[in-house]
Every structure is written in structure tokens, then in C-alpha cells.
């Protein structure tokens, strides 16, 4: 079982991407999720072209939302994470999945991700280092930090 980084620690994920069998307890594609009558204890994964707003009504009960990076240069999931946190008020796990590379983890964390299923071949130890070190400040207001100008004032 592949480990993920969650809240700064390397852990075995509680929920995994659904492949076969029981949907409950795993992370299902958006379409499947929306069709479920019983959504309890079920995670959802949302692809880059899909709209996170479609799960807005259910966010209170969703244990994990995984946002897919089809390729690392596709930046749509950053906006999805922002909207999930800021507009939908989602407080659970947002996991980066797909082509997740360590040089992007800091950007992800500043947009609201708190869990990372790294792409094949990425060094998890190094990844933790990147997340801990990071840049000292950020000009922008992000989900985790106020804008730098608030600090300067």
C-alpha cells in the first residue's frame, strides 16, 4: 500500500482510490459520487476539468476530496482547492493525486491541500523537507496565511 504525506507526516492512507468492490470507505470518481444515494464515509476524486462546486452541498460529510493533476503543468486543481476551502468551507482532507511532484508541494499547500499522494519516483523524504522549509513569507493572502501586507502593517 502506497503511503501518502498528510499533515506533514508519511502515513498509510485511510481512504484509497476506488478500484473495485465496495465504494464506501474509498475515494470514488465525481460522477459515481454524485449518483450515490448514501454518500456517507465516501471520498471523492475530482479531475482537473470538473467543477468542485458540484459537491458544495455535501462537504460537511466528505472525509477526503482528492484533486487530480493529469500532468504537473496543469494548474486547475490549485483553483479547485482554493474554492473548496474558501467558498465551500470544506475543512476535511484535500489530497493531491496524479502527477504530483515535490517542487510543487509548497504551492499546493498554500492553496489548501494538506495531503499528497506523490507521483511514482518522487522522493517522499525530500518532499517532507520541501514542505517544512518552504518560503518564509508569501505576498498573497492564502488559505493558510494572511497577505504579507497585513504582516507589514
Amino acid at each position, binding site marked *: 500500500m502506497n503511503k501518502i504525506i498528510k499533515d506533514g507526516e508519511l502515513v498509510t492512507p485511510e481512504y484509497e482510490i476506488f478500484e473495485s468492490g465496495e465504494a464506501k470507505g474509498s475515494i470514488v470518481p465525481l460522477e459515481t459520487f454524485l449518483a450515490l444515494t448514501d454518500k456517507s464515509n465516501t471520498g471523492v476524486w475530482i479531475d482537473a476539468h470538473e467543477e468542485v462546486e458540484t459537491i458544495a452541498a455535501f462537504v460537511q460529510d466528505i472525509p477526503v476530496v482528492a484533486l487530480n493533476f493529469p500532468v504537473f503543468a496543469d*494548474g486547475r486543481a*490549485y*483553483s479547485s482547492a482554493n474554492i473548496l476551502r474558501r467558498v465551500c468551507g470544506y475543512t476535511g482532507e484535500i489530497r493531491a493525486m496524479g502527477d504530483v*511532484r515535490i517542487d*510543487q508541494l*509548497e504551492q499546493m499547500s498554500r492553496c489548501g491541500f494538506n495531503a499528497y499522494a506523490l507521483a511514482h519516483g518522487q522522493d517522499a523524504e525530500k518532499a517532507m523537507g520541501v514542505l517544512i522549509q518552504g518560503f518564509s513569507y508569501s*505576498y*498573497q493572502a492564502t488559505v493558510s496565511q494572511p497577505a504579507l*501586507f*497585513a504582516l507589514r502593517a
Partner: protein
Amino acid sequence: MYVYDEYDQKMVDERVAQYRDQTNRYLSGELPADEFLHLRLRNGLYIQRLAPMLRIAVPYGMLSSRQLRKIAHITRQYDRGFCHFTTRQNIQLNWPVLEQVPDILEELASVQMHTIQTSGNCIRNTTSDQFAAVAPDEIEDPRPWAELIRQWSTFHPEFNWLPRKFKIAVTGARRDRAAIQVHDIGIRLFEKSGQTRFEILAGGGLGRTPVIGTVIREELEPHHLLTYLEAILRVYNRYGRRDNKYKARIKILVRAMTPEVFAEKVEAEWQTLKDGSGMLSEVEIDRVKKHFTEPDYEHLDDHVPEVDDLISDSSGFGAWVKQNVKPHKKPGYCIVTLALKNTAVAPGDVTDEQLEIIADLADKYSFGEVRVTHEQNVTLADVPKKALHDLWSELATASLASPNLGLLTDIICCPGGDYCSLANAKSIPVAEAIQRQFDDLGYLHDLGEMDVNISGCMNACGHHHVGNIGILGVDKKGSEFYQVSIGGSGYEDAALAKILGPSFAQDDVPTVIQTLIDVYLNNRQEDEKFIDTYRRIGIDPYKQAVYANE
């Protein structure tokens, strides 16, 4: 100009360290080439035809003499003793070595400079009016706003992987010297009952599909600037096309949605964040504005008899003043622009020695600051009129007194096939051939102001779509040809040039330009400019003359 505080400096230093680590990992084979490519691009490093190219950010074109000297040092130490001023007010090094780039970045950081986001699909350097704060037609200094945008866009975690590159320009004057209508976002400052307001345009741009931007918000209050930009970027990041890089710029999205629907989407997004933590505070606006206060101007007189006599007397000095010196908002001061357009030197290229001379002259005559212009020239913004002749003499000794600012030979020209790996054709030799054809200064002055812009390919770095005459390098069965268009403008009367017809061989280009000029001279009324005559008579007379023998 803006001076870094500990926070700005820390972030730039941390970026240097981060990039050094990325370079080391790439060189050791740990970081795959495809990934390093994107990382180095976000740091301004391209791999070009002959060598890497490193693009250095010059925020809204402002440079101090200290920074100029550092650039001179870098070109000597790490490159071949010259650099290039670009059409986006930046600086390019043509021959750096990949392994040494982290050292170059460290040198730059020591004078508050960097290469962050000068390439890649992210928000690029924010550009502005080179005559900011000194032009008589200015409503408000755009630079504090450009600086606020610079900070907001730097390392923006959400907008570093956009569908395509993204360029923002700001102007605060009546004359639009920042070409805001052909940027992804254009911002025009205006005043309403004594208060600052912004007009926001979106969806302009050059490249393969040139488009003039559309106003998507007529009036925006200052403290909402950054949140409104965030809303635009978010809509673009989510819905801009990613399947085809030629259709990925925001202009295609705005067009596909229609500007009205796009503006509605932005508005809806903005409502969710406008009063949030990204809203600018008065304190922050004031803090940044304090960096752009007036220099210590002396009380001077506009009337300087010694200089006025020399202007009418000496043809060299007089011709230079007539063309390269513009009125200043303060009495007794002038705006001087050095046209980096000497024949046989690539437009916008300067040597290390020239950089140092410009730095010295800036210290001596212009409060130690210069501005890079998008026409690839350099402006000394605050020169006392009484010092004009001394300045001119020193410039002339350094081959920096070319008296052709704004004239036909002040050509905007991309690096083209001599350097750029994307080029279809060379552009520098075409500029030179035109400069040789039109070498009579009296004749050039008689022709008056006109823009000739040359790009080596569809990417339009030479802004050929907005040239009065635009020249585009095209590939025709493996040989280099040039498509000529006419009637463009990048100013407040922005217009896209129209293609004349079939393209020409390189050797024929100067003759074609001459023919277009002849049509103009035969038709012009009184002191009509080239563009005005064109607008009055239309494209047909030019076409007929150029293709007369076919």
C-alpha cells in the same frame, strides 16, 4: 523607486537557494529534464539556438544606476560583454552558462533584482509607461500600482501553472505608452472626483491571433485592485483552454465566452472574495506610494538661452533634441531617451561599457535612475535642461546619441533567427538593411514619427501587429520570407496592422518599405503622420504600388 524591505529580500534570496538546489538536482540526474524545463522557465532560463538565454526582470522598466553597474559586471563576468533590452522592458543575457545561473541570480539578488517569472505559463513582469511621474499628460503615477501587482503576482501559488503566459500593463496617462490594449490585462488609471479609479481591459494580445482588449469593468476602486485581478486569473486558470497552446491565451477564452459573459463570471467570482483578506489596505497603498515620491527637483526656468541657442545652431545637437528630448512636467527639466538603434548594432543591444556610462550619466544628470522602454530604448527621466548639451556630448562619445527616436529607423525588433530557437526567419539583418536604406537624417525627420516593428515569428515579440509598418518572418518552403503589414498602432488609438499581400524575400524588404513611404509622401496632406495618411486613404494605394509589377 521601490526599495526592498527584509521580506522582499528574504523571498528573493530563498528563491536563489531553491533554484540552486533545482539546478544541482538536474545536473546530478535526480530531476528529470522535462520537469527542470518548467522550473527553469519560471526562472527566466530558456535554452536557445546557440546557448541558454536568461531573462532578467525589470519591474515596469525602472533601474537604478547601481543595478545597471551590476548588469554590466554580470555581462562581463558571465557573458560576452553585452545584453539586450526587450520589448517588455526586461533585460536578456544571450550567452550565460546553465551551471553558473545560480551565481548570476545571487549577484542579481544583491542589488534587489531577479529573474522570477520572466518566462513560463505564469504572470510575467508588469509593464508600464516609461514616462511615469514625469509626463505632462499624466493623471496619476502608475508605478505604485504596478509594484503592488508585482508583489501580488510574485510566487502566486495558484497562478503559476496557467494555460499560457500572462501579461499585465498599467498606464496612468492620456497617451498610452504601455500598449495596454494588447495585453492580457490592461489597466488604465483615471480620476473621478479627485479619487483614483481603474478601468480594466481583458483579452488583448498579439501572437498568432492578435486581439484588441475589451473593457470588462469601467470603474474599480483602488483597494479592490488585487482581488479583482485574482478573480480574472481564477476564471482564466479554470476555463482557459489547455488542449492547444495556440488557443490558450485569455483572449481566446474571452472571445469564446464573449466579453460580457466573461465579465459576469469574473464579477461572480469577485463577489466571493472582494472584501476578504486580499483587499488592499490604505496603509499598504501608502507604504508603496512612499517609494515613488518626487526627487529633489530644483526650481529651474524653462528658458535657458545658452541651450536654446545651441539647439538652433548645431545640427547634431539640435536634431537630437528635436527627436529624443520630450517635455517634462517640471519647469526646466526634460525627458531624454537614448535610442539604442545605431545601424549595424542589433536594436536594444548595449555593451557593458555603455551600461556603465549610462549609469554614470544617470547619477550625474537624472537622480541615479533610468527606465527601459518597450521600444527597446533607455530613458533618463529627469534631466535639467541646462545640462542637455553636456549630456549629449557625453552620449555622443559613447555612441548613445542616435537622434532617431520615434523615427522610421527606431525599429522595434525581436532577437529573431540569430538567437531565438522559435524563429522562422532572422529579424536583426532586416532591421539593419532598412536602417541602411534610410540613412539620411533630414529625410527621416521629414517623414516624421512612425513605428516599424519586426518579429521573427508568429509569437510577435517585436509587436509587428501594432507597427505602422509591421514585418513578420515566415517560413516559405524552407526559406526565410517576410510578410509586410501596415496601419497598426499600439497607443490609445490601438489598431491591428493589415497584411499587404504575398510575402517578400529578405533583399526586397527595404525596397518595399521605400515604396510604402513613397505612397505616403505622394498622398500626405500638410504635416499628416504616416498612420494618419493611411487611415485616410486606406490600404489599396499601398497594395497597388507594392505589387505593381506582378
